[in-house]
Structure formats: C-alpha cells, structure tokens
C-alpha cells in the first residue's frame, strides 16, 4: 500500500483483508503459511508489528486456531487465516469456539481439493463452511466477498458480527480473490465498530466473581439447554443477517445463482445475454450462512428457473434446491479441481436451460 496521494490503492484481496482486520481493531493474529493466502500472513506480520498487536507464526493450524481461542477468551479481537487443507485442521478449534461462545474471524481463501489437491482457486469448502464443519450441532456466519473492496468491507463486518453474536465468522474467498489486485478505497472515517464490552472474558477476577469459559456441561439436561440457547442465537442470525445482491430478477426467466469470484463471471454472462434479449437475472448470496432461502423461495413461486454456477460439483446447489422447494426448475453447472467456469460455457448452459 504505497500510494501516498490517493485514498484509492491497488492491493490484492489478501492484503485488503489484512488491512481491514487492522482497521477493525484486530490485535491478535496467528497463522501457518499456505498458498494461496501467504500474502495475508505476511501482511499481518508487518502490520501487527507496526500497530503493536501480536503476530504469531504458529507450529500448525491446530495451534493457530487455539491461540486465537486463547486471545479471544482474553477479550481480544483475534483472527486466523488459511486455505482449504489448513481450514480442515482448524475445524476442531472452530467447534470449541462456538461451544464456548467465543468470537473469532477465520479467513479461508479456498483452493482445490480433495486432499492436498493443488493451489488453484475453488469453492469446494461450501458445505464445510456453511454446515459447521467440525463436530457438534452448530453454524458459523459465512461471508463471501466478490471483489477486493467488498473483501475489505466484509472483513470489518466479520469482526462486528463475531463480537455481536459471540460466534466465529468465516470470510470465504477463493484463490482468485486472494491473489487478484483491484483498487481499494480506504474510507476516510473509520467504521463505527461495536464498542464491545466483554465482561465474560478471562482477564483475572479482580473485583468480580471468577469467569469460566467452557463448552463442557456434564449435568443432565444442561448441555441441551446450552444447545437450545445456541440454536436460538442461530435463529436470530438467520432472521437478521441475511445479505445478498439481486439483479434483474423481476422480469427474468432464468436466474443465475453464484457467489464470490464466480458471480462476477455470471454478471458478465447476464449482461451479454441481456444484450441479446434473453431475460436473465442474477442472485449473489453475500452471506452463505445464513442463506437467502426466503427470497429464492418467493422467486420460485413465480416459476423462475435457477441456474446455479459454482467452482465445485454442486454444493450451494443444494441450498437453492431447498429454497425452491421443487416449485421451479433448478439446474447446475460447475467445474472443480481448479477449473473455472468460463463465460462461453455458462452461456451454453443458459441457452439449453432457457429452451428446456
């Protein structure tokens, strides 16, 4: 970020996410290097030393997420970041964070799997991110930016939501978003952040009763009550935090549904199709959990068809089908293993689907 004159700077998604964390008051980062998010780790290393925060290159992803657990337990705004294989390792810690009602921000710049896969972009971790990912019955808020600017803004939102609901939030990007550079406008005034008091944090019990942070409840019925409280919180999030972008859906016959990088490709397809007179719309979920079931359901009532496009073999597809409740046609096109759906391919699918 070396432009001195302008508030508009050219940065990668990884760097934008890192700067957003700093702007949001994040004072603790622990992570383990993995491509394609290494720029983020490096950025945090530099910025934490400049801002007096803590940066730790952990011995493993397991250690990193548990360091974040500790920092969060002590009341800090804390984050970690990784890419798919590393995020799998963090699942244990994410489950504990939810169980202990601790806020944290976890960034996943997805790469192609399964296994080691390779370092090309992918969206194969949708299920893992939106269904909890680790053991137990829980959800994490999942934010899916599609541009560098939006990555910056959603990362700040991620910290606010994490504190507001005392729940981990996942920023879900892919290798393309992490690596891509775009102009970023740094807002002249800082965001209004939740000036969150954390009376529950473990900071020493001076002048108060001791605090205990736990997810273990052995007495009969207590764990069920704890789970009911969590579920109530998840229901509240589902009610209040759904975010999406909707374009040309009113007159659309076919609506493309895509998120993140893929939604940009679909935007181009929609514009081309519209120029040719085809009535095509676009829905871009910004929160993948909570998912915008309600609005898709309403559009399904109007018999609009949905073409779901993903960089995987059909994961968000299941949510769109759940939303449509069989009332309208849902079709899918996707590529995985690092393959990126191309405009022409999507156009062909669109054409076939329109005629069906």
């Amino acid at each position, binding site marked *: 970020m070396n432009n001195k004159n302008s508030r508009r700077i050219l940065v990668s998604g990884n760097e934008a996410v890192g700067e957003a964390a700093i702007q949001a008051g994040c004072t603790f980062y622990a992570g383990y290097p993995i491509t394609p998010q290494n720029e983020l780790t490096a950025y945090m290393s530099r910025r934490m030393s400049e801002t007096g925060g803590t940066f730790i290159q952990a011995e493993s992803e397991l*250690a990193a997420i548990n360091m974040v*657990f500790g*920092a969060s337990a002590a009341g800090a705004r804390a984050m970690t970041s990784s890419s798919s294989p590393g995020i799998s390792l963090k699942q*244990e810690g994410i489950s504990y964070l939810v169980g202990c009602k601790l806020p944290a921000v976890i960034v996943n710049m997805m790469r192609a799997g399964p296994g080691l896969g390779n370092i090309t972009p992918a969206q194969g971790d949708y299920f893992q991110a939106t269904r909890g990912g680790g053991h137990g019955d829980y959800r994490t808020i999942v934010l899916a930016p599609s541009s560098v600017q939006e990555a910056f803004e959603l990362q700040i939102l991620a910290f606010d939501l994490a504190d507001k609901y005392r729940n981990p939030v996942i920023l879900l990007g892919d290798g393309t978003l992490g690596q891509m550079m775009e102009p970023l406008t740094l807002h002249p005034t800082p965001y209004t952040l939740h000036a969150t008091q954390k009376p529950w944090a473990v900071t020493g*019990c001076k002048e108060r009763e*001791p605090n205990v942070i736990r997810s273990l409840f052995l007495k009969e019925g207590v764990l069920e009550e704890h789970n009911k409280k969590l579920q109530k919180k998840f229901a509240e999030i589902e009610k209040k935090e759904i975010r999406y972008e909707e374009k040309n859906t009113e007159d659309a016959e076919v609506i493309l549904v895509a998120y993140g990088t893929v939604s940009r490709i679909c935007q181009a397809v929609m514009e081309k199709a519209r120029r040719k007179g085809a009535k095509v719309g676009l829905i871009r979920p910004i929160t993948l959990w909570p998912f915008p079931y309600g609005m898709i359901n309403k559009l399904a009532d109007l018999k609009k068809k949905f073409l779901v496009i993903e960089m995987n073999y059909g994961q968000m597809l299941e949510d769109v089908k759940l939303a449509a409740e069989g009332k309208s046609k849902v079709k899918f096109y996707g590529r995985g293993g690092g393959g990126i759906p191309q405009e022409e391919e999507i156009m062909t699918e669109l054409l076939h689907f329109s005629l069906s």
Partner: protein
Amino acid sequence: MKDENNKEKIKSLRNVPMHYCPGCGHTIAHRLICEVIDELDIREKMIGIAPVGCAVIAYDYWNFDVTEAAHGRPPAVATGIKRVEPDKIVFTYQGDGDLASIGTAEIIHCANRGENISVFFINNAIYGMTGGQMAPTTLIGQKTATTLTGRDIKRDGYPLKICELLALLPGAKYIERVALSSAENIRQAKRAMKKAFQTQIENKGFSLVEILSPCPTNWRLSPAEAMKWIDKKMTSYFPLGVVKDD
C-alpha cells in the same frame, strides 16, 4: 479465615466436594496450586487452563478465571491469552495424554518460543478418565486396558521423558520433576510450583513442573500401595529433582 473443619481456608480453592477417586493425586495437586496462588497473592491475576481428562472440570474447584481447551491444546490457548494479557499469570494443568501424546507439538513449540507461562504436568502413567489405557508415560511392562500383557517396547515404544526432552530447549527456563508420594515429596512439589509461578512473575520464560501422581483406581492398587508404587517403580524411570534452572 477458617472453614467448617477449622482449617485455614484457601481462597483460590472453592469449598466444594471434589469428584476424584479416593487417593487420586489431582486433589492434592489442586490444593497445592491454590495454596501457592494464595501465598503469592496472585489469585486476581490468575488465568488457568483446564485440560481434557479427569481434571476437565477443574474450574468447579478453582476460584479464579479459567478457560477450557481442546485436548492437547492448552499451551496454544495459554500462548494466546498470555500475549493478550502479559501482566496476568497464566498456567496450564495437563495430564500425560493431553501434554505428552495428543499435545506434544503444542508443548514443544510453546516451550521453544519461551512463552512466559507455567505448566503443571500430571503424570500418572495411565489414562484415567477413559478407563485405564496406556499413556505415553506408561512404564515398560505396565499392564493397562490396552497393554494387557504389559507395555512392550517393540510394539508400544518407550515411556516419554518430557522434562528431559523440554530441558533441551533454550526457551524453557525452569523444569522440575516432583512426586505426590510422601509428605516430604508433597512439600517439595509445592516449592516447585511456587518457583514455577515466580519464574513467570519475574518474566524469565517457560516453566514446567512434572508431578508424578497416583491413580489407585486404574493402577488397581490401594491409595497407600499407589504411593509406594510411585516411589518404587515410577521414580526409577522418571527421576525426581530439578532438571533445569536457568
């Protein structure tokens, strides 16, 4: 202040019955740690990390701030806490499965970074809560639920000497092995715990006290026999004393 039995009340220890088996070392270890905290007058600065294992609900007994941690991860959690709250006193309390098996990476790297925390490592050479299976510190030939004919080095490897291993790391400043097997040994254990906290208070770096602790239930011994077993069997493989004091 005195409690109902006219004993001096320990402020850091809640006045509730403990769930541990008769003759279990956790009861003694909890009490010693809490006495030391009171004596150093650091209760209001304490942040403890409870393990996974028999002492999983240690926070029901400790009267200061405590967080749980996933199995093996207390050193990582402690790192996060201590970096955010460097003026507080942070300790982990971990069993042999937690520290020496599933959490080996975390403890080595925590010590190697020289994290300014204290670790109390309860070594009873067996897995207590899950029903007496082999621990990384189970002695050669010792019978457990998963070593029915005794620990066989060809199949199970050797008991892990954590103190000696960690003493190699420059980040580790004070390491001592103690036992809860006699009044004198218990007094020494308390001195070691105090020294561990003092090491942290003086910002010297990582400290660890390994505590050889009886588990009569899973050893299939009476509490009195269990104490003798520590002195007779355990200390010959895990010698007592200061391993490192920089």
